[in-house]
């Protein structure tokens, strides 16, 4: 293709000269319908009835909660339902002090990896019911369910100390 040359006209002059544009705002809104997937949907439906439903890998026999569709290690679909207890052991944790966009929790708050009894992968969740400086590895916690249950992780409000003695470090060693 040939583009005809633009005839050279007189240069545009502005008085006072235009300042450079340093910023333009272009709000973009895109709407999505998020689908949870088959395995996650089973998990969420069970949660709305107050149950934690994990899935077991047919090859390595490990139990995933929440289920991820596959066992990422073996690359096969997880296939067997396993009920997991709503209590477990803290393997590691984090105190968040930084405000961020979309933040709903009051700062500071504690989140922890909780190795639930019957699961093989820690479940990352909000911890409440004790000062941040008293949280420790091996501490036993239990779920506090929300008043109304639904197909959402918000059905568990948080995990709180269960009062049980700390777990034997050997029981969670490979998760630290």
């Amino acid at each position, binding site marked *: *293709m040939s*583009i005809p040359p633009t005839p050279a006209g007189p240069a545009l002059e502005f008085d006072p000269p235009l300042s450079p544009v340093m910023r*333009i705002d*272009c709000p*973009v809104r*895109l*709407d*999505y*319908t*998020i*689908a*949870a*997937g*088959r*395995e*996650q949907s089973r998990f969420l439906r069970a949660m709305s009835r107050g149950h934690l439903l994990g899935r077991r890998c047919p090859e390595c026999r490990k139990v995933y909660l929440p289920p*991820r*569709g*596959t*066992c*990422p*290690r*073996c*690359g*096969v*679909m997880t296939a067997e339902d396993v009920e997991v207890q709503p209590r477990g052991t803290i393997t590691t944790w984090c105190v968040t002090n930084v405000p961020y966009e979309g933040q709903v929790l009051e700062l500071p708050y504690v989140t922890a990896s909780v190795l639930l009894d019957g699961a093989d992968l820690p479940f990352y969740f909000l911890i409440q019911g004790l000062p941040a400086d008293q949280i420790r590895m091996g501490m036993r916690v239990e779920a506090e369910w929300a008043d109304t249950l639904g197909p959402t992780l918000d059905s568990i409000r948080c995990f709180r100390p269960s009062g049980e003695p700390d777990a034997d470090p050997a029981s969670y060693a490979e998760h630290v």
Partner: protein
Amino acid sequence: MVDVAIVAFAQRPSVRNAVGDEVELVQPVIQQALEDAGLRASELGFVCSGSCDYLIGRPFSFVTALDAVGAWPPLCESHVEMDGAFAFYEAWVRLQHGDVDTALVYAFGRSSLGSLPIILSQQLDPYTVAPLFPDAISLAALQARALLDGGRATERDFAEVACRSRRAAEGNPNAQLRQSADVEALLGAACLRPPLRVHDCPPISDGACAMVLATGERARAIASARGRAPAWVAGVDHRIDPQDLGSRDLTRAPSAKLAAERAGAHRAPLDLAELHAPFSPQELILREAMGLGPQVAINPSGGALAANPMMVAGLTRVGEAALRIHDGRAGRALAHATSGPCLQQNLVCVLEAR
């Protein structure tokens, strides 16, 4: 160069709205392709995938998808934010090193979750064009209009492409749109974005596919054990044009022409070409750019007009061409993939039996 062949290809049927998340979408095709090649993930020399985060509105969708592979022990793995055909290219380059002899390539796309034509408008210059939200169908209509105004095609030509594609798809169980009214009836329909009618546009598709590549002796061994001919990569090349719609002649695809030349498309006669032309006028542009005459069968699978899972449809063209080499339906085939508005970027691969 090291000889590389496609030895297995698996795809799932494209649908308007797939049940399942990306892992559930892609895991079965990966497993099928690996089983078909008699390989386990841990044996793979290289893995590469293609996908686009904006389709599902979340960053790192390819990270989640890695759960479908079984990347343990850790794999040599890479990802392009491009159609899977470009992941295929990266794998072909990686296999040139000669230190590994197999590669897995996969792609997945869930176009159904958002408004695809509007999402694609965000590929455009973010300061001057994207804020206008020109949707992908409107841009294709601009291109179609330019073809008509230049006297290079008619609306009937567009309808003929659409009719032929959807009727070819009747033999393709993985296609989404598998029949067509005749051309006269198509031309009687109202325009969606003039001059494009609904039949000139692709369906919104969710889909996934996976492919296994192997080099030299390994490719021969895998293919012969399964009674198929390896689909050897005789040439592959890709090129990009400037995006700026105002500076391009939208009726031409110079990058497709150059890629076809560099891939050696015309070193010997072609039996068929699988072209990634989501809109019917684009097939006409591509055929002219690549010099594909009437003796070359176009899109026996039905092409992107029959199923257009974003990020997957280009790699599917390569796979469909390979399947026809595998079973002897073709001896030499061209496969093409495109990306960007109005055929901005184009990849051409030539496959042959030997």
